[in-house]
């Protein structure tokens, strides 16, 4: 069964048709980004544009996009950001959802988190986010970007800071920004030095300890299990919709006979713990024993 939900930030598809004793359910988040060119004024080949798009900030030299450079940049953006976020997490099914029988055995698949990034032009319908993009002159090393204004070098690996040992911490800005677009905050938001009620863009929110500094939602490129948050939240929404659909379709039947849901009510409050290693579907006995299957098992199918 394939179910789809649309969120403000992305679209989500939950596919249980792919489940078998070796393959998990798939939850795909699709982010449609619309890119809009920022070109030098008056059709000139060269010009300037201010950091953060703010005329009071320093101006940087920019050049006009060509069809080829525009196409290449968009392709590079998608081809480098999508693999970073795609297929990195597995949500462990402790809720008893999506059960299916095969070879006389009942299985409980986990949920594999997939990511699809679509790079459109800004005018295309259905984009979740629209981003302006300047093409920097080759002489420019840096431009002040923000969540809706990128520069052509934001896809490059660049030094963000140093760790406590003085070693450089590198990051591709666009993978960090895609994290924000998926709903992720900076790595240290929620800690005492970066309260959610304060400015969550403060330097301390990008990490104080070396491990946090190196996280993708800090100043580095390391993924963490908590970065599975957008998939986990999408999954909870599927559980809510599953429940509401069952209730509204036949309220009486729901109250009397409690029809089987694809995602049991407990799914609403389940943790769906994330792992960053493939975890195979489990049998009822394996779930009961709390066993995790990370090596391809030998199933009777």
């Amino acid at each position: 069964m394939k179910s789809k939900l649309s969120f403000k930030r992305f679209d989500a598809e939950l596919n249980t048709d792919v489940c078998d004793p070796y393959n998990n359910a798939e939850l795909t988040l699709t982010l449609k980004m619309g890119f809009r060119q920022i070109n030098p004024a008056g059709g000139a080949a060269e010009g300037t544009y201010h950091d953060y798009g703010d005329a009071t900030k320093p101006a940087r030299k920019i050049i006009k996009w060509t069809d080829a450079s525009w196409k290449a940049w968009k392709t590079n953006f998608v081809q480098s950001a999508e693999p970073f976020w795609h297929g990195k997490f597995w949500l462990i099914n402790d809720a008893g959802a999506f059960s299916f029988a095969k070879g006389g055995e009942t299985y409980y698949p986990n949920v594999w988190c997939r990511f699809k990034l679509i790079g459109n032009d800004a005018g295309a319908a259905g984009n979740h986010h629209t981003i302006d993009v300047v093409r920097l002159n080759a002489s420019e090393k840096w431009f002040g970007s923000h969540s809706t204004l990128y520069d052509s070098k934001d896809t490059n690996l660049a030094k963000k800071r140093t760790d406590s040992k003085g070693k450089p911490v590198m990051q591709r800005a666009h993978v960090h920004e895609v994290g924000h677009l998926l709903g992720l905050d900076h790595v240290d938001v929620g800690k005492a030095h970066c309260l959610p009620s304060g400015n969550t863009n403060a330097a301390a929110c990008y990490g104080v300890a070396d491990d946090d500094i190196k996280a993708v939602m800090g100043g580095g490129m390391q993924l963490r299990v908590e970065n599975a948050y957008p998939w986990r939240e999408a999954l909870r929404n599927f559980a809510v919709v599953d429940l509401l659909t069952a209730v509204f379709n036949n309220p009486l039947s729901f109250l009397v006979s409690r029809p089987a849901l694809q995602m049991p009510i407990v799914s609403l409050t389940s943790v769906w713990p994330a792992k960053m290693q493939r975890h195979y579907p489990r049998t009822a006995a394996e779930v009961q024993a709390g066993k995790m299957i990370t090596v391809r098992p030998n199933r009777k199918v």
Partner: protein
Amino acid sequence: MVFRNRIMAVAAVFAVAFWLTGFSPSNKARADTIAARNCKMDVIKQSVCIYEAILADVDKNYPMRGGGGIGRIVQNSTTSYSAYLLQEEREDVRIYEVKVLPNGKVTITSVTEETVTH
């Protein structure tokens, strides 16, 4: 002649000793004196000293070594200055309280941090 040779020998010993130890008894004092005298000399020299102290602090204590560097340093009041450091999505602001002693020496008395989000 003998006396002259003795003087030259003593001078040579001191020269070798200074060269070996790197010790120069008047260099540091002279540097301080010159800097202090310069800072005290007029308001422009004083401003230069203050900005140099701020720049030295940013260089030593600001760990975000990427981004666009120092965007600007502005004077907020007679004793307060703000250094704006350009980063993706934000500017980090370091606000300095400075004190200029009667001898011209510049001291940073406090540094606070703020962020301007873009």
